[in-house]
């Protein structure tokens, strides 16, 4: 059997294409198959699929989001939308509020139920819990629960955030500490 596209080389790759419910069988040589598959990938890769899901989910909420950048690896949300891959583990914290609904769409859930690593730094769990509070709600809304915490507590949280390289969280804490300190000075 000869290749359906070039008609010269023997067909060694057999492909079923479904376009608008029409099933087409294609018999291609290795070279034409390679060209065809890369053309198809360009047309519709997994990243497009994911990006599409993100779009669908976030269309109305997303103004200004693509500029959010992971302080650890530098990946922006716009990068993620383009390539369909996150840059590092920290990205999951930074983009948490957009990722949670996406994960729910993909998996039907955004809550892990499986095993956990044998070695798990306790500070990592604590730091992530602190960031959860900050990221699942909009920053101003997250503030009230934190407002009660004392200066010392905030400073401890800041140290943890810096250690975890959660710089966005750290910046927020730093501003809070500054505000509290200037208030204290003003009251003197």
């Amino acid at each position, binding site marked *: 059997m000869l290749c359906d596209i070039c008609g010269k080389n023997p067909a060694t790759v*057999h492909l079923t294409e479904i376009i608008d419910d029409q099933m087409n069988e294609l018999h291609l040589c290795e070279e034409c198959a390679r060209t065809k598959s890369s053309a198809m990938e360009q047309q519709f890769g997994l990243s497009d699929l*994911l990006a599409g899901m993100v779009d669908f989910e976030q269309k109305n909420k997303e103004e200004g989001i693509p500029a959010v950048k992971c302080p650890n690896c530098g990946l922006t949300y716009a990068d993620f939308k383009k390539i369909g891959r*996150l840059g590092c583990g920290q990205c999951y914290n930074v983009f948490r509020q957009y990722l949670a609904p996406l994960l729910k769409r993909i998996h039907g*859930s*955004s*809550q*892990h139920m499986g095993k956990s690593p*044998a070695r798990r*730094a306790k500070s990592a769990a604590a730091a992530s819990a602190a960031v959860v509070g900050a990221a699942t709600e909009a920053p101003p809304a997250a503030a009230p629960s934190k407002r009660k915490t004392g200066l010392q507590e905030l400073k401890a949280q800041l140290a943890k955030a810096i250690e975890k390289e959660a710089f966005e969280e750290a910046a927020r804490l730093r501003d809070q500490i500054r505000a509290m300190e200037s208030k204290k000075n003003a009251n003197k």
Partner: protein
Amino acid sequence: MQINDLLNHTSEWLKGTGPNSDIVISSRIRLARNLSKYPFPHWANKEQLDGVLNDIKAASSKINMLKSSTLFVLGELDSIDKQFLVERHLMSIEHTQKTEKKALLVDDEEIIAVMINEEDHLRIQLMQSGFNLFEAWSIINRLDDELGKLLDYAYLDDFGYLTACPTNTGTGMRGSVMLHLPALVMSRQIERVLAAVSKLSFTTRGLYGEGTQASGNFFQISNQVSLGHSEDEIIENINGLIRQIIEQEAQARQILLSKNRTVLEDRINRSFGILKSARIITSQETIELLSMVRLGSDLGMFKDIDRRTINELFITTQPAHLQKIENKKLSSEERDLKRAELIRKKLNLL
């Protein structure tokens, strides 16, 4: 171990043993893991990828389960060697491209294969013959625990194991079962079965995983969802589905035997005849004919052919394997000649 040593070895998953091995070729579990201190491979620079590779090398050298394993650095292999490893199902096609700082760790029995710096820092894979996902899970779980003691995995309590692609987040687990379903294909029930599979959010792939077409009546079924269920639940869900498919294939085989016995025997014997006498044969034709012979063997038609010989031929007749056996580069035409020769040798010896 050298790559060439694999040539004379039968991969664990090809042995044709284990539960339901008349219908289930193999069971495979893979776990996606990343190290918390480095960006994911696609976003990391050379030094970081090097760091990943060195950390994993150091950790794996301390693990007993990996004592008899070999590390292949992909950048040092030629294209035939890389293709050879893909044909043996030890790694993905993706792992053959942009090979800098990519590596593959394989144990002597070819039960464990760990891809380093593929889409994630670690893709740990465990293979078993037959329908055996829980056994695969119990071994890979132990290995993952050992690695997790030495390496700091990227993990969050609520999202679980963090992966480059959000489709793998959570358990990072994919369980796959490779099925041989000739009777469901012949009786034209396969579309119905596959439609049900995708409705239940499982995926079907061909012999070589992601993006490959089902051929030779082989179908690889795996879970899509990796978050929101425990590993045991995910495996139990796959198992439930696979048990039903096995039952349907077994029934379809019985119906073909009772209603169309002569037609079926004719087709199987003709396939065997072509394989035993062909002088030129493509890999596609080989897979299709071998599939029929395997069915014949499962149905007890060939008392003296063992399943393992047929299973091995599916792999050793692939392009890179033929070139490794001949120890030189072969054109497509030359391969078709050598392939026919190899099959005649193996089948006529029986």
